[in-house]
């Protein structure tokens, strides 16, 4: 019995995402420099660091939007270095963007339905003749889409155009859309930016609820309260370099972190 728990514990702790000396340089600028990071399955992993630290660039590298200068990325044990974003997304890694990227002329529900792309099989023939496959795909996308919207609390705005949503709600929709891919790991780039305290609180809860359904979450955030409260583990970047990592209790006391943040407030 203890052996079984141990194995279960090991599976739970297994690393879902791994980077090996990942570097991204823009000319002479080392936006990300030799970053080693491992994200354990089922955790909420925070990434913090002052503006320009390379957090978003690291996300872009992980999701295939940014070519690496050097290094390797492993997702669920497989090497995904150099794969295009759509392949990485279809493998179960989905993300949101710091500068919200919604399909603004489409309705809230259509935004989410688009996220089911790689789950559906409809081809040209099916679409033209409304075959069984088409009907199954469409009702799957609608039902699942509404379910996700219900879940994040956007159900009653399903028919609204995405462009007409309030700012905080747009971020929520982006998360809902990312969930349509049924991802194993969800990458959130500053999800609380532009949210009021009430919305931020709701967001914290949502992140935890998503995590409870078994999804791993990596979150970039400036809101320290959010980070310290929801994250199991935190990686700190500064000027492209990982300067420390550990559980929140450890990060809070680390002198290098305090210095990096103080340095920022001096220059600001």
């Amino acid at each position, binding site marked *: 019995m203890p052996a079984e728990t141990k194995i279960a514990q090991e599976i739970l702790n297994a690393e879902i995402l791994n980077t090996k000396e990942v570097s991204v340089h823009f000319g002479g600028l080392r936006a990300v420099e030799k970053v080693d990071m491992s994200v354990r399955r089922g955790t909420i992993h925070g990434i913090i660091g002052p503006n320009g630290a390379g957090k978003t660039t690291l996300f872009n590298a992980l*999701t295939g*939007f940014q070519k690496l200068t050097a290094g390797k990325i492993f997702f669920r044990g497989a090497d995904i270095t150099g794969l*295009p*974003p*759509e*392949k990485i*997304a*279809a493998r179960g890694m*989905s*993300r949101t*963007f710091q500068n919200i*990227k*919604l*399909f*603004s*002329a*489409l*309705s809230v529900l*259509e935004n989410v*339905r*688009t*996220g*089911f*792309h*790689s789950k*559906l099989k*409809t*081809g*040209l023939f*099916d*679409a*033209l003749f*409304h075959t069984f496959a*088409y009907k199954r*795909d*469409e009702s799957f996308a609608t039902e699942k889409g509404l379910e996700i919207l219900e879940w994040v609390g956007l159900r009653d705005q399903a*028919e*609204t*155009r995405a462009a*007409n949503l309030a700012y905080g709600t747009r971020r929520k929709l982006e998360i809902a*859309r*990312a969930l*349509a*891919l049924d991802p194993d790991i969800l990458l959130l780039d500053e999800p609380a930016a532009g949210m009021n305290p009430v919305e931020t609180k709701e967001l914290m809860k949502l992140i935890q609820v998503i995590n409870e359904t078994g999804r791993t979450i990596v979150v970039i955030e400036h809101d320290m309260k959010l980070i310290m409260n929801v994250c199991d583990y935190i990686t700190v970047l500064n000027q492209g370099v990982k300067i420390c990592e550990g559980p929140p209790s450890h990060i809070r006391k680390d002198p290098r972190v305090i210095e990096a943040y103080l340095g920022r407030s001096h220059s600001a």
Partner: protein
Amino acid sequence: MSSPMVSGILFCRRYSRFFFVLLVAALLAFPLLFPEDPYIMRVAINVILYSMLATSLNMINGYSGQFSIGHAAFYCIGAYTAAILSTRLGWGFWQCLPVSGLMAAFVSFFLSVPTARLKGVFLALCTIGFSEIVRLIALNWVSLTRGPMGMPGIPSPSVFGYEMLDNRELYYLILFLCSVCMFTCSRVLKSRLGRAWMAIREDELAARAMGIPTQRYKMYNFAFATFWAGVAGCFYAFMANFVSSDSFSNEESFAIISILLVGGQGFMAGGPVGALILTILPETIRFLAEYRQIVFGLAILFTMHFAPRGLVGKFVEWIARLDREAKDIDMSIGGGDI
């Protein structure tokens, strides 16, 4: 709120199916109202033919956010394919029809392989250059296309051995083809394919993050859209019984894009509305016929200024503003089935 207005709109919505049937009936009855007037029938045929061409371009410019301004190239390929197959191999209309479409779609791959990474103006320049190349090939490949002499002797379309010589019959034929085209387009738009195209139009990076291989879907989009331009080209060849490369110059591409812009890209009704106005306008005001290009240019200027999303876009916005009681209008499909 102005309640008679709102209830009027709700009425229209509730009975939209009825209006649709009415429209279909009007289109079917139209030739019977003008039995002895070949001129009116010719204009009507042109309106429908250009509706089809603009709808085809709409799939590219309006729904996938790509920007083509050389659509006449594919119209040309369809027409020449039909001309060559019918005059040299004796093929009939219905055999030429799918082959013309497929030929246009096939050639579009040659354009979209190198241009899949290009956007906006750069893509537009490539399409217009490509269109010019296609026209020059048609003009200079004398052994195949008879070059500047054009290709005469294309038979008229026939159904079950019955030859369609009368304009009225041609009207019903193009009405049928255009309906099939629009029906097909609207079905594809309401599927995973159409969603992928619209996602690309709205935000290509976000589309990729949703697992959509955007490069591939842009190629599908070009192929699907140009298929219909090829089909329209086949109809044109069999209707005119003659094709010549100067019917497919950049002026023709410009006409198609003007129609779409005036009607409203991204709306199913955009092509037909634009075609109706821009075909009839130079015809009714006789002295304008000589200055077709100027009329088109002015029409674009006016719509871009007063209705940047085209006339259908303006109409939809107007309804949306009055129709607060009904749900927010989803702009994705716009005009709906029509």
